[in-house]
């Protein structure tokens, strides 16, 4: 090919490719949604006009239809100056744009055949939505997601390198957003799932290891900012092990909600196996010390295991609100009244309450009935340690290590001894290991004397001693 031909060809190709680039740029996803919405609105006005008898109203409807047919397509955004955010969600969800659609409802809101993107905001009449005008709060303040984006995948935030995808409405995770500002969320209408999550969090003794804003123990990490925690820091290279409903998640679904859910619906040891036999590190590191709350079959089957899927989702919802994002302005915060201590006439009943309040169930089981797993602790029912065992055999025995089942032991303590034991705790290094070369158990009995008041401690000991198993002779 001669240079003259190549010259013309190259020039035309450059022009062509530039037009291609322009066309690709012009063919934005949001334009289809916006123009479809305007068309649907115009059609509905046409329909109204056709049915209208009054000529003044008829021409009014026709004018409206005409206006919507000629509406220019543009990126729309809500500027949330409080959060310094720009939410472009209304670019596609035009029905939720107060300026285009002041009622924020559409005639097809209830039509299951119409895609949700064209519908108004549900529950628009409820106090919950009225108290949070969209023009002030925007969308992502509650829903999360990537407000700046104008593509479905990008805006909904289920993409790589976006750490806060939209919170699931179906699973109730969105209620975590109530928790962000409302200290009193447990009394709020519409935050029931988050409230249930907090109740579950208390009931199963999560506070026994995880503190939130200083309330709870420090055996494991504090969770007051867990929703902000950068993903790289939390999961590292363990995320690949996460299974939700037994399935591996695609990388764009790797986020903090699924990470927490995976801990509650699987054995945490699978998620964080660490290095119990020191294959990778100089010292052995036990797997996650968190108990397995997952042995349930399905939602209905609450008889098995401790947490149903709904319970787990509720806890995820609650923890999704654990943010310390500095940008949330102080005037958005609604403090909670201090939690009231219930009164108990009976010392035993109070003791039981104290057991729950401080998260003892996290290690000793609900109602102290069964001590939970304590990896590589010496415990009953283990085969004696034998160096010749394979790693798998050793692992099986290490897994049998458990926290004390309190009713079995209570017979050996006096009231004062028990108070002293609880008060001083048992340091991590004092643990008796099954495999002497294996890792130190991850969980330990923390020091309680500064946390539990004397009165509470007395009643706790009374209740615990009352649970002691008695043999045939009555002792």
């Amino acid at each position, binding site marked *: 090919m001669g*240079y003259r031909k*190549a*010259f013309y060809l*190259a*020039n035309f*190709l*450059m022009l062509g*490719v*530039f037009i*291609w*680039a*322009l066309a*690709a*740029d012009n063919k934005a996803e949001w334009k289809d949604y916006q123009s479809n919405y305007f068309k649907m609105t115009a059609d509905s006005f046409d329909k109204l006009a056709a049915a209208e008898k009054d000529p003044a109203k008829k021409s009014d409807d026709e004018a409206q239809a005409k206006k919507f047919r000629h509406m220019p397509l543009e*990126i729309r955004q809500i500027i949330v100056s409080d959060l*310094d955010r*720009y939410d*472009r969600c209304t670019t596609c969800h035009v029905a939720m744009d107060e300026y285009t659609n002041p009622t924020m409802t559409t005639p097809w809101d209830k039509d299951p055949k119409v895609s949700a993107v064209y519908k108004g905001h549900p529950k628009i009449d409820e106090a919950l939505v009225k108290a949070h005008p969209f023009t002030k709060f925007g969308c992502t303040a509650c829903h999360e997601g*990537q407000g*700046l*984006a*104008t*593509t479905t995948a*990008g805006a909904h935030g289920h993409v790589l*390198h*976006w*750490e806060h995808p939209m919170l699931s409405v179906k699973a109730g995770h969105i209620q975590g957003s109530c928790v962000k500002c409302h200290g009193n969320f447990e009394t709020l209408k519409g935050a029931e799932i988050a409230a249930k999550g907090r109740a579950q969090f208390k009931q199963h003794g999560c506070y026994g290891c995880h503190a939130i804003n200083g309330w709870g123990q420090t055996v494991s990490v504090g969770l007051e900012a867990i929703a902000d925690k*950068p993903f*790289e*820091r939390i999961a*590292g*290279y363990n*995320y*690949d*092990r996460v299974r939700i409903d037994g399935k591996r998640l695609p990388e764009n679904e790797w986020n903090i909600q699924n990470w927490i859910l995976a801990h509650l619906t699987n054995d945490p040891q699978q998620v964080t196996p660490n*290095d119990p036999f020191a*294959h*990778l*590190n*100089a010292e052995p590191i036990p797997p996650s010390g968190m108990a397995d709350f997952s042995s349930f079959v399905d939602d209905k089957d609450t008889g098995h295991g401790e947490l149903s899927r709904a319970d787990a989702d509720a806890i995820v919802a609650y923890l999704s609100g654990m943010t310390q994002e500095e940008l949330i302005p102080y005037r958005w915060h609604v403090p909670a009244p201090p939690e009231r201590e219930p009164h108990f006439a009976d010392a035993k009943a109070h003791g039981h309450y104290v057991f729950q309040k401080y998260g003892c169930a996290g290690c000793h089981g609900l109602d102290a009935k069964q001590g939970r797993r304590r990896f590589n602790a010496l415990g009953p029912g283990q085969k004696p340690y034998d160096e010749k065992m394979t790693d798998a055999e050793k692992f099986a025995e290490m897994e049998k290590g458990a926290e004390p089942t309190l009713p079995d032991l209570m017979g050996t303590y006096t009231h004062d001894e028990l108070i002293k034991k609880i008060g001083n705790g048992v340091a991590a290094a004092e643990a008796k290991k099954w495999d002497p070369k294996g890792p130190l158990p991850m969980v330990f009995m923390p020091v309680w004397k500064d946390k539990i008041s004397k009165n509470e401690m007395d009643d706790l000991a009374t209740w615990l001693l009352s649970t002691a198993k008695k043999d045939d002779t009555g002792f």
Partner: protein
Amino acid sequence: MPTLDIEKLKKEVIDSQIWRSVFRGGVWKDTPRDRAAHIIGNVWLHLHPVKARPRAMKWAYSWGMGGISFALYLLLTISGVALMFYYRPTVGLAYRDIKDLEFAITLGKFLRNSHRWAAQAMVVAVIAHMVRVFLTGAYKKPREFNWGVGVLLLTLTLFLSFTGYLLPWDQLAIWAVTVGTNMAGATPFLGNEGPFGGLMGMHINNDVRFTLLGGTMVGENTLIRFYVMHCVAVPLVVGILLILHFWRIRKDSFSAAPYKADEEKVDVWPHLVKREYIGAAGTTLFIMIWSILQNAPLESIANPNVTPNPSKAPWYFVGLQELLVYFDPWIAGVLLPGLIIVGLIAIPYIDTNPKGVGYYAWKERKFANTMFMLGIVMWFVLIYIGAECRGPNYAFYPPWESWYILKAAPPPTWSVFGPAHVGALPIALGIPVIGGLFAASMLLPKLIQKELNGKALMGGFCAAVIAVALVGMGLHKFGPVSGAFMLFFGALAFYFGFVMPQRHIRGLDWPRYLVTMGLVVCTMAILLKMCARLTFNIKYVLTIPTISLNI
């Protein structure tokens, strides 16, 4: 019916007063004089010579890489200026502006993609241009100076790309720049972590790294500094050097050798200019298509508290980062790049071989070509290993292996010569031993004046290494992989560091010989240090902690 006479119209347009005032010269008759006037009479084209040898026009000779580099520079200027209309270099706005480019601005994504990809392509094109110029001996007298200017331009190209890397203000950006600037902190004398830095009174807040960053860590000041360097300061310097570079090409004439002795030169207009245009247009097309199909990377917003694992420098510096596995930062990040730049500039002055100017001459320039290509291959092999084979904790992961397979930490390392409890042997012994080894490898090739039998030498050396490796494996000191490393690196270093210089440059005069050999020995020292680490887990051969000197 009047017909449209194109030729007449064209003549009228060209002969009009307006056209004549813009383009100098008379009526175009396509004579040699006209074609020469076209070059001389045009401010942009007059940096070209009027005539050049036919070989200089051949793609196979020049690869068009110099022209393509310049085309990319122009493309980068245009797309860069366009991007400047949208981008604000502050910590609070930078990342959001990039997101706006991606999601809201007409052609914003296309612009950013083209700027990013053109920058990557320019790095490759400039390196390819340098390789071509080397292989055709185009740096030799009288073009030594222009080669030096070219080396500076290469360095500035890398620096331009590096400064641009920070601007999106995402995780990729700040951590790549953190890796890069931390190396600067290890500069001898001028960096607070470099050897003798303490003696010079360097602290974290007054050394060269601080100057680059405008602080002790990557932050607002760094962003504005890098922005100004990227958009104004460095492009200005590059522009000035480019004019110098082009002008010197014209003054020194193209290097292309004549095909036959009494060959006629060819007019640059149109023969070279048309090729330049096609090269530039093809490059533009390539970048445009690439930019439509592939988006530039953008990770989460920069967070100085969260270090990605692994954190990597921009790909063209990953080779140096890979050397951090084997060397302290002051060697990998400062000394070696410094030596590379100085060594490259020195090449025309130490290469006394008059042959091989203006054509590819493998046989006539065995030593020069081999050594240069060895360096280029090492540079890219290291980049490949660093970019593709390094996973979490900078452990070695072959490309097909998942990063989710956790790896054991590397075995503990030890140092040969150092103070008590640090080195196995004392420093007092180490300095003479290492000095002696260095002096021997520097001087031996020239001191042995007769030509040695290369094949026998290599055979003997390899046999000796294999014997040592077998003994080592027999004593369970190391495994077969380490043995293979020993043979591979040992043979490379012995062949290129002793056999080749002994055969080819023992006749060089002493000053040139010493400079050449110094560069060769430094290159071989890299291979040997890699061997020492991979085979024997040696961290330092010599460590003097009091002055932060570790080699």
